[in-house]
């Protein structure tokens, strides 16, 4: 750890806005040469946006970046790489089909008159892999055939081939097993000994303690603490920093649940190989059950399996006592189950089509006589729903693409309202939704429950799960590790459970 006078990179007052949302509202921190700087924050705190700003994929609206004291601005990732900043994203961006060496030098191949100097590419790749402690990776192997861990090493080699002085690693351990994590840490230590700085993002407290030097905490797009000593700071303090919000969303009040309400959804022993196992779940009419867990913990997969969109390897799903055919969306929809998927744009909506068509798509037979659609009636019903849900701007003939995230989510909810479903599965219902619309969506969900719908909510926002639900299940690595009433557990306890720590 060298702590010379000027930091390698300083970030000052960086603000990044997207239509309807301020993703970053003022971020400050310094990265010194040779340190591992950990970034901590809940989902939606702005970590991904920050990485993209640092790596030149986004331009900040305000604020500045200084590289060794000089103000720099990156127009694109290539600019950033030339300066010495390289990001290794969670979804690795290697080209399958090209060799390891070709991947490392992709875009800056040493060449003579347009002919790549192949021998040199291979030689320099081997040297880089050696420097990373992995001479075992063959330079001419197809990069798509490597293990996730080795792909990560190749990504790092690519960053170093551009003379990377600052590596940003976004949850690198998420795809690795324990041995691979150990190897990764060894590599990181060797790099930092050579003066390379690493910005390391992880949710796992024990990793931060082991590899990190200093910690910066982000919350709601702002820096709330920076330069904390990674080994000494108390976990409880970090969790408090991550959760204490300035923005209070209004969670609607809830009526005490009628204990005699009939059970609508029963899930027994549901499992999907490699994803999750042994999931039991019952939801009564009018009850909201929350699933809390990290991305990749299996919570979205559980919802998909309940809905039939993913075929389970074991277990049963019953609605109103009737068992659903496994892995059949049609059966689930007929039984009255609706899903608002996590990726609203790619899984939920027909973006280029009119609002009313998106609302009626699951209920078409109700508007058809002998297969002919009464589009007048469709529009009337859609207009009633969009008015009730206050979709703005109004107008059911508008393409869904032109609406903001919150209003798009309302359109998906309207689809299932129209169908009068018995069970509603919501995966990250407020992702990409701005603060104002959030409370409205919470109201809607509560409203639906009061009308007797059984609701299951998945969210990585712990406060959201606790604020909305009657009962909470905490999922970690494909298993339910806790189940109980929402009032009897608090946010730090849930965070502790999902991150697998033992502190608090």
């Amino acid at each position: 750890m060298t702590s010379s006078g000027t930091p390698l990179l300083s970030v000052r007052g960086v603000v990044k806005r997207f239509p309807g949302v301020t993703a970053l509202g003022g971020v400050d921190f310094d990265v010194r040469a040779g340190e591992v700087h950990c970034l901590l924050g809940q989902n939606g705190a702005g970590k991904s946006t920050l990485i993209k700003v640092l790596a030149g994929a986004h331009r900040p609206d305000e604020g500045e970046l200084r590289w060794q004291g000089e103000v720099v601005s990156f127009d694109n990732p290539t600019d950033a790489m030339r300066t010495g900043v390289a990001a290794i994203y969670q979804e690795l961006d290697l080209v399958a089909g090209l060799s390891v060496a070709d991947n490392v030098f992709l875009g800056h191949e040493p060449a003579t008159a347009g002919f790549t100097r192949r021998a040199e590419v291979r030689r320099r790749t081997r040297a880089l892999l050696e420097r990373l402690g992995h001479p075992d990776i063959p330079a001419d192997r197809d990069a798509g055939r490597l293990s996730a861990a080795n792909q990560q090493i190749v990504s790092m080699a690519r960053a170093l081939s551009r003379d990377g002085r600052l590596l940003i690693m976004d949850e690198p351990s998420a795809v690795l097993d324990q041995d691979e994590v150990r190897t990764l840490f060894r590599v990181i230590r060797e790099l930092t000994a050579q003066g390379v700085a690493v910005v390391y993002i992880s949710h796992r407290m024990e990793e931060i303690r082991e590899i990190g030097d200093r910690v910066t905490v982000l919350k709601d797009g702002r820096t709330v603490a920076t330069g904390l000593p990674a080994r000494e700071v108390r976990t409880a303090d970090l969790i408090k920093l991550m959760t204490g919000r300035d923005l209070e969303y209004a969670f609607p009040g809830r009526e005490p649940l009628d204990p005699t309400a009939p059970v609508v959804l029963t899930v027994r022993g549901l499992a999907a190989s490699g994803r999750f196992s042994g999931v039991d779940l019952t939801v009564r009419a009018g009850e909201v059950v929350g699933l809390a867990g990290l991305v990749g913990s299996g919570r979205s997969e559980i919802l998909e399996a309940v809905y039939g969109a993913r075929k389970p390897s074991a277990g049963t799903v019953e609605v109103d006592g009737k068992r659903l055919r496994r892995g059949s969306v049609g059966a689930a929809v007929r039984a009255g189950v609706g899903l608002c998927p996590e990726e609203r744009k790619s899984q939920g909506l027909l973006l280029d089509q009119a609002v009313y068509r998106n609302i009626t798509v699951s209920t078409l037979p109700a508007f058809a006589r002998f297969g002919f659609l009464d589009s007048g009636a469709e529009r009337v019903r859609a207009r009633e729903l969009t008015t009730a849900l206050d979709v703005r701007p109004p107008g059911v003939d508008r393409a869904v693409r032109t609406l903001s995230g919150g209003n798009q989510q309302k359109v998906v909810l309207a689809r299932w309202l129209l169908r009068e479903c018995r069970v509603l599965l919501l995966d990250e219902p407020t992702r990409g939704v701005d603060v104002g619309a959030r409370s409205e969506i919470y109201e809607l969900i509560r409203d639906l429950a009061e009308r007797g719908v059984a609701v299951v909510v998945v969210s990585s926002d712990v406060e959201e799960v606790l604020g909305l639900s009657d009962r909470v299940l905490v999922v970690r690595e494909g298993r339910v590790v806790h189940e109980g009433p929402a009032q009897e557990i608090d946010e730090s306890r849930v965070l502790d459970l999902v991150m697998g720590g033992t502190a608090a």
Partner: protein
Amino acid sequence: MSENTATAAVAPTSGPPDGGRARRAVTGILGSAAGRNTGLVVALVLLCLVGVITAGDRFADVDNLLTILRLASVIGVVSVGMTFVITGGGIDLSVGAIVALSSVWATTLATQSVANDAHWSALVFTALAVGAGCGVINGGLIAYGRIVAFIATLAMLAAARGLAEILSNRKTQIVNVPGFTAFFDASVLGVPVLVIIFVVVAIVGWVVLNRTTFGRRTFAVGGNPEAARLAGIDVRRHTVLLYTLLGVCCGIAAVMLIARTTTGSSTHGVLYELDAIAAVVIGGTLLSGGRGTIAGTVFGVLIFTTLSNVFTLNNLSISAQAVAKGAIIVVAVLLQQRLARRGDT
């Protein structure tokens, strides 16, 4: 801006009931069809002008115009079916081969003798059944076998034409079913039956695509298959239905071709896949799926057929026609992209 005016224009139609509503609906449909297809209408009118100027009365002659329509009819029926498949996010390269196989199967000695003994419609049903069967196979391979549409239908292209050659022994089979020939050679009020069939197929196609559950699901499946699946639509079954529908259209086209040429042959329908796809695309249907227009397709077919007619009347070679065709496709698609971008903002 244009978004707002569109909403405002639509809103009142659901308001006041009775007589005015139907009229407004009709003018609305015509208006929007003409509006969206202005470019195509202009292109067609220009082509006709060129025809009149260069070939004079030989072009602007009722018989010549009927010839254009008769020629447009066969490929037109295939193109209407193709519009469905492309709107649903697929592609079918095997249409020409299916037309050939259907025409051969419907004109074998066996089929013809049944047709003569029982009723000439046996010939028609054979062609439709063969077309539908090929469509089911295409759709099944794509939806349940998970073979990419391009490859599955490429295989069908090779296999169906091969089978047609085997069945016909590479000979042209002359039709000798008087009832059949008499029916399809007829005209109603001066309009040939072939043209009437095309008009009926186009109208039915328009209604099914724009006014039925099936049509709506086609847009959904083509626009975002994953979202359609999660909304509860059986995407795989729908895909099979789309290719089957196109197969039936190929069967109809085969019947029309048999009537026009009085033969069934394994060389029928060569390159129909390209003509049909070109007509669909210049009509404004998105090759990536999710957006499709039957009216545009009809205009597309008319433009290409009129173009060949004008070239033929002026004694220009088939090769020159091909060059012009290529140019038209490029210009049309460039224009559409420009318009689409303007529509977005």
